[in-house]
């Protein structure tokens, strides 16, 4: 074996293990609110906006507050430190990223699973009702 090949192989092995180790650390896991309460770390929670609970922008704390129901049926308040994101009302699901404290999910990042308009017949029902 040529020394170049050996050195190269070792370098690749070390590099790959480091990369994958770091990769493993940098990804999180989608959880429900109950699991999120047990973690201290940042979590991703998928859920739906509960429309009939109070929501709105808090002008004092500059947070957008709303209630979300996760995939397991748990409802918690979410406090998002920006204004209401685009497409919020229309979203079929939300991914809220943040930390859970005292039953409130404090979020600084939110993905709005955009109008997957594919099966959305609400507008059609609205127009045909008129």
């Amino acid at each position, binding site marked *: 074996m040529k020394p*170049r090949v050996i050195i190269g192989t070792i370098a690749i092995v070390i*590099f790959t293990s480091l*990369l*994958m180790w*770091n*990769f*493993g650390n*940098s*990804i*999180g*896991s*989608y*959880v429900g609110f109950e699991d999120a309460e047990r973690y201290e770390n940042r979590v*991703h929670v*998928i859920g739906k906006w509960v*429309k009939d609970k109070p929501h709105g*922008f808090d*002008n004092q*704390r*500059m*947070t957008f507050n709303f209630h979300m129901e996760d995939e397991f049926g748990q409802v918690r308040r979410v*406090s998002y*430190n*920006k*204004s*209401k994101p*685009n*497409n*919020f*009302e*229309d979203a079929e*699901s939300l*991914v809220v990223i943040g*930390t859970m*404290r*005292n039953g*409130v999910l*404090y979020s*600084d990042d939110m*993905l*709005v*699973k*955009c*109008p*997957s*308009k*594919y099966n*959305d*017949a*609400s*507008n*059609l*029902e*609205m*127009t*045909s009702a*008129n």
Partner: protein
Amino acid sequence: MIGIIGSYAVIAAFLASLGAFTLYFLAAQREDPKLEKIAHILFGLKGALIFLASGLLVYLLLTNQFQYFYVYNYTSSDLSIVYLWAAFYSGQEGSFMLWIICGYLVGMGLIKWTGNTYRAPVMFFMTMTQVFLLSMILGVTLFGVHIGASPFRLTAQEFAHLPVFLSNPAYVPVEGSGLNDLLRSPWIIIHPPIIFLGFAMMAIPFSFALASLWKRKYHEWIHPALPWTLGANLCLLVAIFLGSYWAYETLSFGGYWAWDPVENASLVPWILGMAGVHTMLIQKRSKIAHKASIVFAILAYVTIVYQTFLTRSGVLGDSSVHSFVDLGLYNQLLLFIIAVSVSGLFLYLRRMKELPTQNTETPLFSREFFMFSGAMTLLIISLIIIIGTSAPLIGRLFVANPTPPQPQFYNDWTLPFALAIGIFTVLTQYMWWNKYKDTESLAGALLTPTLSASFITVAIVIVANITTILYMVYIFVAIFSIIGNGIIMFRHIRKNPKMIGGSVTHIGFAVLLIGFLGAAFDTPMLDTNTVNYNAAVERGEVMDDDGFPVHQKLEVMKLDINQPRRINNEYKVTFTEADITHDNRPGEQRYRLEFEHLKSGKTFNVNPVIYPMIANSSAGNMSWTVDPEVKMGLFRDIYVYVSNASMVERENSRVENQTSFQAVADALMNGYEQSLNPEINDLVRLKPGATQNLGQYSITFDRFINMAEEDLPENAIVGVKANLEIKNAQTKHTEKVSPLYSIIYKDGSNSVHSPISELETFDFDIMFETIDTATDEAHFRLLGIEESIEDEWIIVAIEKKPLVSIVWLGTFLLMFGFSIAIVRRWEDQRKRAKQSRHYGDE
């Protein structure tokens, strides 16, 4: 009817491409020019058919034929013709069509310009990609298997379960569900076509590489493939730039790059195409690296298909901001990626033994070595990005429901390699254009760039007050790369300006590196109050209503109209104007913020926009979208958006009872005068039935009530009451009041008697002052309302983003360099083709 023709056109196009696919195979196998000619005709026919189908779809879109699902789903009757056209590729089905059209166009170019040796096999592989793409929009069911989603399917089929269609299958929706408001931007006209042109062109090096393996001609293919690969790369680069700029400047994604899967989908093929271009250049010059050129050409296209699979199959689901509808194409997309990878792998393994290999080892310090290392580093970077993007799949090795990695992962792992590339570019460029006896003479030549880069780096470190060693190294490498490549460029300009493509591109890359560093210094600009609040949050002193400590710091602040605030001790900012302009959409609002630089006294204005997304809103819940305004500067951008405002809240309360799209749009259009906060005047003039707004209050004058004689006050000869309703739009409190206006005859003269009515709910009083008989208006005086009207306010985010302009500058240099290189390689290739025709040795 049109839909049926369209569907059949798509099916016929699919069959034609299948025919061409088969004939190209036979033509390549038997080297039969007659078969090849028929295949060309079929390929052309396929093009005509797909143009016909696209034309019909565009016609349906332009004429608002909502009985077709694609038309219903992506348009509405209020869209202008430009967006109706853009709706053609706003959905998955249409974007596949656009991709096919691009593939057809570059295919025609290949037929025209490719020499006899490679033409048939190259077209075979090009047609293969077309067959797969066409299968995505077939929309036929064969033996119980549904293949593709037709763009011509009917709304009635799609919503067959809805009562409307159950009772009346012939029902045609009167209105479409509209184009996503975020897509209503001029950028949508240009961004998608360029990206699909890039995707289609990247199939060309792939096809050439496989053709070279098939026909055992491992060297000559790079000459025709080089300009095409460069062209594909230029297209992807322009598309990536347009997408980034769109995201940054109008979509408020917060920055120009977010490592989103869809962004990565065009970045990875670009990087691999880049690596391919470099190994092809090595191969061209030194007749080595045949294997690497072939592998990169294959990988660049395989990653395009792989990332298409990731973004369109629904695998990524929750991890992308881009909405992709899952059309159930998972299996077909999987088949596509298997087909392109397996055909590449199969041919490569078959020919591996006879592929040219090097007899001698490349010396460690040679241009080939450095250039090859650079290409390999590009490969490593793309592998890292692929791993990150594939988190939903391979992350399962670590956790159950993997999320995408933090952006930090991408930054940490790609930037060091990007720096290495910066150094490789200089070493390679020096050795490519000069002969050095030994490493010592090379080191001597590199002394100038090294010394001047060190000097400039020290100057920057001192001026910009940079303390992190990592950043110092980073800056040094980037500057070294700019100067090293710059020296080479100036030499070329004096001798042969056509040769500068490479060095300009490399300078562009190094300039980009500098620009990227700016993102590490993005800072929100906040006023003193907000800064103090954040400090208190950090100390744990701020409690919420339930007595728990608050952890979230503020990144936005509230500005009241005409009240200047100091932000970051750098600017004085004043919110001076709010206006409903209806510029691009009904209800669009524009704000004005005046900035004054504290030190220099220089001023500038920023006019961020916020608009209601009617198409995306449901009744009673208006969605608003911000359109940031960027004040560009050479060294820093000031990025401003208004996220909420008193005027937005008033508009919301005005339209909350409207239930239909049209009613909301009408209300937004017509409330213009009332919605602006007028100069506060406590006199309100109203005709019966009219409403006027004063700040957050709305005053509605219902009607006059003539008073019966017995109800009149003493001595009154005439009296009338006014039924008024006063509403606070924010608190929703209302109060009804009926102030009196009467004329009293006493001591031989008339006088007006209008007593002040005190309001119970609100802090002001009301008086019925007079009736203007000329205009039939009643005049009411709202005593003390000035104190209760709230000022106009906005919630605004202001961010300082350093060096964004430098990123754009680097991108433009890359584009310029690519263009020069394409011209040079193309001329080169034409000359070569002429010569070989001359000697008759094709």
